[in-house]
């Protein structure tokens, strides 16, 4: 599903990613862990195609296709989804209207028929309920006045609505209490499927108690330093990033 080869990325002329290699097959959930400043968010923004994240060498293949020339909206339409660490507050844009516009933009780009307002609302409401997202929240401006947990739940709701083939969750656990983490993890686990790949980016091992990954990768100083099974996360928790060493497995 996702093949990253020797990826070098610069932001504002400064090289942040220095040769990342990562392969995530369909049906698997991988975790990328790393200390602050290791390049975790750069990796997620680069995958999403944000302006200013310049791929200087290497490649990102998604379903065998090179993503690097595609705009963020085209990547979304092709089934890529990024749950942001800091979802953006947008006053004046109602949440439900945003969800409808986004869903139909993706459908339009794929040549599918757009869905009517009633159909979208019904679809959204069903999924929102399970995430404890109220009607009142959906009527509010996008993310405005939402608590940290509400914002993250809305990210998960979007993932469920857009049904991506590849989802990257960037520090979705940050700022959440344990109940909120469980709720988010339930949403993510419900999305696991043979045809979907997910990358969970996190600083802490805690989230991985609830979303158990097939593989764990340690990102440090712009490179994948080590890879292993779920036990690697526990090891990191015990020993800290400083004491993990060794070539990528």
């Amino acid at each position: 599903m996702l093949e990253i080869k020797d990826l070098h990325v610069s932001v504002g002329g400064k090289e942040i990613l220095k040769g990342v290699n990562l392969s995530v097959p369909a049906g698997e959930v991988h975790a990328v862990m790393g200390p602050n400043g290791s390049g975790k968010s750069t990796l997620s923004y680069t995958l999403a195609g944000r302006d200013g994240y310049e791929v200087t060498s290497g490649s990102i293949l998604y379903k065998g296709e090179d993503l690097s020339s595609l705009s963020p909206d085209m990547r979304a339409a092709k089934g890529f989804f990024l749950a942001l660490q800091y979802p953006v507050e947008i006053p004046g844009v109602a949440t439900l209207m945003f969800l409808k516009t986004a869903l139909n933009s993706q459908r339009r780009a794929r040549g599918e028929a757009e869905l009517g307002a009633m159909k979208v609302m019904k679809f959204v409401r069903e999924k929102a309920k399970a995430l404890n997202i109220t009607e009142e929240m959906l009527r509010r401006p996008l993310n405005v006045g939402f608590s940290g947990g509400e914002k993250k739940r809305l990210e998960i709701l979007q993932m469920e609505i857009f049904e991506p083939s590849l989802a990257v969750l960037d520090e979705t656990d940050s700022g959440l209490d344990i109940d909120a983490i469980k709720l988010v993890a339930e949403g993510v686990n419900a999305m696991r499927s043979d045809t979907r790949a997910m990358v969970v980016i996190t600083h802490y091992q805690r989230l991985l108690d609830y979303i158990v990954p097939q593989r764990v990768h340690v990102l440090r100083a712009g490179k994948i330093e080590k890879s292993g099974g779920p036990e690697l996360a526990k090891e990191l928790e015990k020993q800290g990033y400083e004491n993990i060493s060794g070539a990528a497995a």
Partner: protein
Amino acid sequence: MTAQAFPILDPKTALFHDDYAANAADLPGAGLSWLQSRREAAIKAFARTGMPTRHVESWKYSDLSAALENDLEPATAFRAGVEVPAATEVGFSPVGATQITLVNGFLHLIGGAELSKFVDVVDLAQLSVRTPEWVEKHLGLHASAADQALGAASLALMRGGVAIRVRANTKEIPPLHLNFVNPSRGHGLMSHARVLLLLEEGASLDLVETHQGSGEYQLLANLGMEIVLHKNANLTHSRFQEEAGRTLHVTSIGAELSRDANYRALIANLGGRLSRLDMNIKLAEPGASATLRSVTALDGEAHADVTTVMDHAAPHTTSRELFKSVLVGRARSVSQGKVTVREGAVKSDSHQLFKALLLGPRAEADAKPELEIFADDVVCGHGTAIGALDADALFYLRSRGIPEWEARSMLVRAFLGDAIDGFVEGGILDALWQRIDRALDSIYGGAE
């Protein structure tokens, strides 16, 4: 009245002055002594400022004199049988409105819904001894002093316009649409017109004012507007300026609000080469309140200036002003808001907010709040924010599959929404968004 009274005049000031010197005797109502003395006072008031340049403090950001051509001729009325260029795209006309169309400042026709019998309309090109007393009582007392130089000129050189009275306690009458059509006709023109709007005690009116232009020649459309709201009167005023690309548009409004009168205005600047709305509002008695919302959306070289003076002259008066601009290309907006709280005007409550989105590297917004407070126990707030579209918000929307042009459009609409929401609705709201989208079309690039 001869040129000798003003020995040294720059050519732009002379344009008005010479017109007055040559034609004063032939202007409407020339034989009426009350009007003649007001016109005399007005041309003198204009001469004190002259044609505004940047050296006039309140015109610091808008150089009308430099933009004006030397050889504009006074516009004349269209004669019966001459085809008036249609206001093809009005769209802003409310359903069921009475439509008063003025062409180059001259009353042309009254159409649409029948005029309420509680509303009186007087053609200012036809002033005579038979003109009703209420016109004489009010015409030319506002928007005619040196602080509104172009307003003064519009009175001195007034060729046409309308006076409208809504009689006491008149409510729920059809909206009134003042439809200004401003074609330039084979050469550069200047028009000077006045509107007097009098709402007697307890009267309510929904007024829509549109300005549309056409033609390749320069046109100076100069309008002076007097708004008199008696006790408990209620005026909602929606104004849509979409002049042609070479037009210089100046409107000077002088409004006076009596006890518990309420004035709400939406000002949309969508066209013209240079436009200036010069608005003086006097909250003359307790309980008077004014709400202004200005929306400017411009591209190219267009320049729109909204300059207001909010005069809290009595206790317990309230004003709210919100100025919003979205600018593309080399467009420029100027928002100046002065709030004066006079001695004794306790419990005055005013707030001003200026916001601009600059969407072109050479777009410019100038915002200038100004407070003059001579009373205690008042609340006066203001804020200013000028910036670009939020890059985080733009990325967020795009990462959800929304194409860049649509994401930009959503953010622009979100930005302007709170200035527009609750003011206009239905077809007028749709028309306004359509004009805004069109004005900003170049930033939407791939928009279908």
